């Protein structure tokens, strides 16, 4: 467990270096940033190298591989979301929030962070920035337009105001189970809601966020 946290911390720090455009760090820089002794890091760095998450450069600096970048980015995002939740929603001081986030970021599941992210970002009925962050395994948020024919899904959010009212009346509101009866690519969908088949234009289907469970 201890090693896992440390591994994720290292990847996250390297990711921060990389994404902020600073020069790639050597092991000593990493140790300083993490508040550890370089000696403590060595075995973990070797392990990460062996698993293909990072590569040492000839000049002694360290770079992330693709898989390392991905892991680092994910941990970083968890950190940000938790930090934001603690400071903005629970009113904790930014320092404490960051500290708490540092501990929790290693234990929290993808689904929990996804939902928490949505909870923080989602304004009622609207929601922003959801595209491109569905990474969870076995749990996904997608729009009705992206769903496949035959899928059974649960509505999680209806993002449009005007037509949204009509959709609410038809039973398409958060929590309802819907089935995609027909889908023609680029041509909208027919969904079964409460035993009724409803045809939706693509631009309306794109407003309905659904989640696939299991």
């Amino acid at each position: 467990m201890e090693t896992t946290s440390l591994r994720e911390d290292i990847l996250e720090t390297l990711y921060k270096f990389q994404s902020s455009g600073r020069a790639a760090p050597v092991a000593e820089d990493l140790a300083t940033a993490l508040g550890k002794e370089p000696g403590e890091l060595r075995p973990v760095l070797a392990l990460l190298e062996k698993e293909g998450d990072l590569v040492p450069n000839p000049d002694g600096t360290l770079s992330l591989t693709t898989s390392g970048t991905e892991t680092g980015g994910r941990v970083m995002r968890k950190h940000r979301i938790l930090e934001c939740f603690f400071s903005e929603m629970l009113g904790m001081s930014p320092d404490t929030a960051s500290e708490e986030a540092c501990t929790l970021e290693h234990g929290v599941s993808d689904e929990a962070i996804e939902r928490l992210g949505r909870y923080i970002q989602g304004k009622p009925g609207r929601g922003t920035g959801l595209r491109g962050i569905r990474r969870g395994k076995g749990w996904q948020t997608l729009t009705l337009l992206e769903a496949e024919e035959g899928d059974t899904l649960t509505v999680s959010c209806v993002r449009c105001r005007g037509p949204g009212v009509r959709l609410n009346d038809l039973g398409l509101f958060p929590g309802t189970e819907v089935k995609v009866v027909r889908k023609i690519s680029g041509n909208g969908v027919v969904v079964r809601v409460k035993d009724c088949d409803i045809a939706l234009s693509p631009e309306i289907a794109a407003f309905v966020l659904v989640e696939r469970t299991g």
Partner: protein
Amino acid sequence: MKVGLIGNPNVGKSVIFHQLTGIGVEVSNYPGTTINRQYGTTCFQKAIIEFIDLPGTYSLEGDSEEEKIVRSFVESDEADVIVAVLDAGRLERNLYLTLQVSEYRKPMLVILNMMDEAEKSGIQVDTAQLSSILGVEVIPTVAIQGKNTGSIIPAILSSSRVPVVKVLYDHHIEAAIKSLKTIHNLEWVDAIHALQGQAEDADIREAATALSEEIERMHRMTVAQIIAGNRHHCAEHIANEVVHFQSPERGPDIDRLLTTRIPGIPILAAILIGILLTVFVIGSWLEEAIVTLINTFVMQPFLAAGLPPLAEQIGVSLILAIQAGFGIAFPFIFTFYLFIALLEDSGYLTRAAFLADRTLHRFGMHGQGIIPLVLGFGCNVPAIMSVKLLRTKRERLIASFLVTLVPCSARTVIIAGLVAAFIGLAAAMSVYLLVTIVILATGLILSRVTPGDQYGMILEMSPLRRPTLKNVLLKSWLRIREFLLIAMPLLIIASIILGLFQYFGLIAAFEEFIAPFSETVLGLPSYATTALLFGILRKEMALETLIILAGTADLGSVLTMAQIYIFAVVSVLFVPCIATIAVLKKEIGTRMALVISAYTLVVGLLAGAILNILLS
């Protein structure tokens, strides 16, 4: 005593209305057939009952046309009893509206219609239990077969009651309603409307907005969503109590054929083209028969009577108008309406709308726009009236514009009687092709320049049903009657004016004036341009006037093929007929009616001029 019929679209309100009053209203297997209120009175055991058939809606709280009509009806104290019509097979979704209506605490009655279809899909509804939960009488019916509809009126008279069912709202909503009620002295329903932003009074609206913002912050959902959710849960709960599922009889999945790209779209194209061709063939044949009949038995005896010239001219014009009206109405429009009725009643039209959605998007509309466009092939007038189905002004505008370009039956007469008869079938089809290109190009331009938002399609798919002959005939008859009522007076007036013009020699004067333009630009003799102009009164009159002015029915002997073709194209494209202009003015305003007329005038003349250069 006044009774209002309320229900979701396509649950059979109009059938029940028809059964109760004997008044013919249009019944469709297509949501949104009843756009305005329909009134009908019946007498039962010395009691006079007035029924009001309201447009189908999913809710009382939206801002669409039909929701406003129904809401204002329920809010006013107009109705003594409200009859909620529900589709037994879709009870849960239908109960949503019933729960809303019951919040007004007015005497109600519930009709559980389409029991046969529900049974077929394995659904059993415990009506006694539903009745005790709602607190009102529940009558199961199969309205289309007239089953048990006889007990509706006695029940309205003897056992309509104020419902007792109550939706449990979220406690924040309940608290907000309570505070609005006590502070502003509002009724319960007004409070819940105010909370959703529907309040007349500015003070109340402000107070309600503050409350609803607070609730939205707490729930991270809009108040409307929470309220809708609570109602749906209540409906779901009731449905779970009273609906018992059995294994349904499963038929073959025809939808698999109809709503997939292949073979769905080829089927759609085949159906539409098949209908047009059939109407074309049957129509031309019937028209000839009717025209000959009137000629032999009315026109010739009339001419033989030897009346004074002015009276004779007016009489001839009158007979010509009637001849033209019936010669088009029954052969072309009625045949066409029969097919449309079949498409509607089978439930196919909703599938067509779904399939056409993507294509129509390019032209700034969505799937439902297919209805006016298809109707336009019959007659532009009802087609333009049907643009009300579309939700935004932008879509209504584009649809009206394009519908006026669709070759209606009268224009089909010109194409069949002129191009097909004197040049050939291929040339006739090329006119259709040309018109289609003009429509597509106009649509593409309009979708870019028309201001306003696009409202996508949210359309409930009607279940596939076997159409009944009786309803198909009844509906086609009602529509053709409507056509005759609107178009016939115009036909007669226009025809008589034309006759008088001719009598007083105004036509000759006009011809002299137009001759240079006509001959150089369109390559047509001046009398042909006069004929074109009279086509504005009635489209197919362009052809009749041409025959009269040319002095022979064998137009091939006086006009070249090119002239005939140009004449047909110009008359098909340019300026819609006077009835269409009148209905355009009513639906989308004088200014747009003028713009459309001017546009078609320019397009028609331009096409004529270009063809003249190309063909001569």
